[in-house]
């Protein structure tokens, strides 16, 4: 007459609802213990997001600037000897077949820039005057922030164009175009100010005059200090190998050839190493957050002995009690994880926006973060849940 007894299965919805019921009674405690997890996840997501957005930003810059530029400069001479490139270096390099364009600058020695003729000679601000070929902006990817490049507007006075940092040092902006600077014992008119040049930062801190003007009026010796070369992307290595010999056939060892885009990429790689370290710190925070969740769960089980006893008396099996507390722990850390993903994502987005990078938040980071959260919640909840399940109903009820 008696039917066999089997516990009824609980639908998933009931499992989640029962697991969540314990969280509703202590909102502050839930908030605080989820916070630990949230901080860890937020830190990791933010760092991954910022680093990937930064990488995307760098790729965008490199796409725009091109990676096919090479800079040819004299190597630092041994024993302090002052090595220069021969005057014909630019022309010789221009004859290499894979070279698309070439330009040069030459440092004008002993000439400094002053706001006016009354400033003492020693207060030079360290701004170098550089003789430049007309094609420079095109080759190095410089953009004019205000005014125009040298020679574009015909001026009866000698003209000067300032690098971005130079203009800032001198306290000049677009509204000062047409003003005069005291340069090598005569007045020059400011005709343009450049934007910062990512591929040639050394050009941000100089003042440009034309090659001809520098030779005629400032005693420039005509030796290029740097030759900038754009070569076909496919032939870049070959051109790289030829440049030193071509620039200075007599002593190629005195020539240093560099690829400025490599320096940008190297900087990004260094940032990546730092980001790895920070993600590690985030992982530690996450682990500590997990310990917080475990702690909360242990306390919760101790406090809710009578609830456990009641549920056993209502017919809950040991495994249903176990599942309830495990679910509670999972929900608790998932709550922290979701909050962390949102906060970290927003932080990464805000930083990327401030850097004018495209916002990139890799899906693996989000899902990995949430998976780590669940793993931690599961580990943190396992021991308390087993303890809850082991509690005998009478022990729990008479407490």
């Amino acid at each position, binding site marked *: 007459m008696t039917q066999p*007894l089997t*516990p*009824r299965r609980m639908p998933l919805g009931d499992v989640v609802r029962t697991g969540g019921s314990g969280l509703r009674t202590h909102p502050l405690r839930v908030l605080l213990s989820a916070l630990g997890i949230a901080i860890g996840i937020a830190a990791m997501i933010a760092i991954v997001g910022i680093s990937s957005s930064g990488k995307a930003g760098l790729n965008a810059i490199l796409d725009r600037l091109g990676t096919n530029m090479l800079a040819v400069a004299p190597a630092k001479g041994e024993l302090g000897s002052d090595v220069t490139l021969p005057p014909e270096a630019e022309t010789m390099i221009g004859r290499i077949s894979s070279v698309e364009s070439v330009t040069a600058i030459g440092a004008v020695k002993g000439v400094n820039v002053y706001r006016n003729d009354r400033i003492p000679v020693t207060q030079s601000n360290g701004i170098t005057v550089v003789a430049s070929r007309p094609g420079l902006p095109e080759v190095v990817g410089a953009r004019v922030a205000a005014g125009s490049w040298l020679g574009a507007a015909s001026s009866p006075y000698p003209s000067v164009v300032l690098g971005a940092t130079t203009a800032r040092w001198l306290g000049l902006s677009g509204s000062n175009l047409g003003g005069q600077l005291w340069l090598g014992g005569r007045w020059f008119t400011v005709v343009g100010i450049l934007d910062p040049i990512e591929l040639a930062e050394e050009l941000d801190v100089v003042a440009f005059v034309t090659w001809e003007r520098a030779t005629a009026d400032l005693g420039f010796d005509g030796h290029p200090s740097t030759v900038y070369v754009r070569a076909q992307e496919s032939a870049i290595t070959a051109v790289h190998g030829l440049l030193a010999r071509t620039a200075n056939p007599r002593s190629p060892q005195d020539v240093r050839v560099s690829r400025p885009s490599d320096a940008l990429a190297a900087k990004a790689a260094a940032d990546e190493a730092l980001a790895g370290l920070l993600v590690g710190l985030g992982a530690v925070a996450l682990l500590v957050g997990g310990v917080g969740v475990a702690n909360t769960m242990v306390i919760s089980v101790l406090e809710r002995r009578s609830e456990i006893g009641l549920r056993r008396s209502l*017919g809950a*099996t*040991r495994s249903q009690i176990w599942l309830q507390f495990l679910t509670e722990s999972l929900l608790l850390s998932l709550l922290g994880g979701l909050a962390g993903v949102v906060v970290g994502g927003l932080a990464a987005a805000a930083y990327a926006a401030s850097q004018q990078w495209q916002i990139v938040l890799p899906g693996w980071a989000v899902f990995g973060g949430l998976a780590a959260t669940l793993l931690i919640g599961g580990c943190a909840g396992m021991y308390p849940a087993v303890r809850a399940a082991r509690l005998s109903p009478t022990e729990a009820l*008479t407490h």
Partner: protein
Amino acid sequence: MLELAGVTRDYGSGVVALRDVSLTVERGELVGIVGPSGSGKSTLLHVAGVLDRPTAGRVTVAGHDTARLSDRQLSALRAQHIGFVFQQFHLAPRVPALDNVADGLLYSGVRRAERRERAAQALHRVDLGHRLGHAPHEMSGGERQRVAIARAIVSEPEILYADEPTGNLDSVAGDLVMGILSQLRDAGTTVVIITHDREIAAMLPRQITLRDGRIVPAQVPA
């Protein structure tokens, strides 16, 4: 419905809570188990309610020999055949009466909508149909105990154990609770009430007196 044969519960270290207790409760009976504190009443409730196993002897509930059942099967037996009412109510705080009562069916494989529907019916049965949405802290002790009774009977158990159901109530609320319990008996549920209160026990048709873990033989009425 309930049969104990030679049941002993020994907690070890010389503490014997029940000694060789044998009793039978028939289907539809209303029985009081009476005795001073420390007489073994609570242990008897735990053993008869399959919350605990006896050290020796046989316990049969609703036709199931509990010695043959696993822990999982005992849980199912409680879920499907047994209801409990406790002195301390054990209601979930800040949870509406309706949901507290619906939890009585949580482990019976009933869908949530139906659980809530049957919970409403059970609350009507204990005259709390007007307080479905009220949480325990908004209720009097008597009302809370009636919510607890509704939770115990929502799964329509064959046997209901009430452990000092009036222990935390004043006499008016206590009488109301006792009235509801005897109504349940009238509706066919077997009800076992555990109490130390002789007055309460005197209201019940049958009493079993416990002292020092043994049943005191019934005195033949003069």
